[in-house]
């Protein structure tokens, strides 16, 4: 799925990485616990989260993810946005809640696990 399709499906705003919306991603995960993301996520390229702090951006970067979606109308700080720009991450924000946002993407074809790695 293209990142711009995620944006459309979730009616999301683009906060960083506008120029990367054409990139493809193949899997996603949702969590508010960065500890769990670091421990259990393998090749998921998209993180949906309701947590807003700089560690979300660093966790995504350490995991080689390409896109973070903030759910429940959470808005990242300017510092988080500039960190994301520096590391080439796409940041999206949607008013939808976690369950709904995940459901929409899942039924749109973005599954939780796919062997193929995202193209960066």
């Amino acid at each position, binding site marked *: 799925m293209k990142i711009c399709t995620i944006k459309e499906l979730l009616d999301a705003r683009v906060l960083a990485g506008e120029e990367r919306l054409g990139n493809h991603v193949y899997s996603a995960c949702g969590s508010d616990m960065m*500890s769990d993301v670091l421990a259990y996520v393998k090749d998921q390229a998209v993180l949906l989260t309701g947590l807003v702090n700089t560690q979300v951006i*660093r966790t995504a970067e350490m995991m080689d993810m390409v896109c973070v979606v903030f759910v429940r109308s959470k808005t990242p700080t300017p510092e988080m946005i500039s960190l994301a720009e520096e590391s080439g991450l796409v940041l999206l924000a949607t008013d939808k809640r976690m369950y709904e946002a995940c459901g929409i993407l899942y039924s749109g074809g973005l599954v939780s696990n796919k062997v193929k790695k995202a193209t960066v």
Partner: protein
Amino acid sequence: MSEALSFRFSVDGENFTSAGQASVQVKKNLRQLGLDPEIIRRVSIAMYEGEINMVIHAGGGVAEVKVAEEFVEIILEDHGPGIADIEQAMQAGFSTAPDKIRSLGFGAGMGLPNMKRYTDYMDIESKVGEGTRITMRVNIT
């Protein structure tokens, strides 16, 4: 034989927001050296978990990363409270992190087991009241 390259960072224990900065920088440096992305990812995750631990459990410390010919070595040293029972600390799910840390997305007790899982070698030296020194290696070949 080329000298091993090394990077050193001081990790600020007062500031949760800046935690992980050293790991981000190391990731950039290793990319510039052209190391395999999967190696870089393993080093980054292990170091990031260790760096977060130094901030939330030990009041900060020093991180050193050496790139040798056969492995990348990460040494994390702090003068925090130390770990009384290392075996227990290594168990998945064991955590002494306060609720405040959990509300920030950490403290699931998965850090040390994760560091072990992502590295080829890990050693913890710790003395209660003195501090902790963790050495990890990820093989390059």
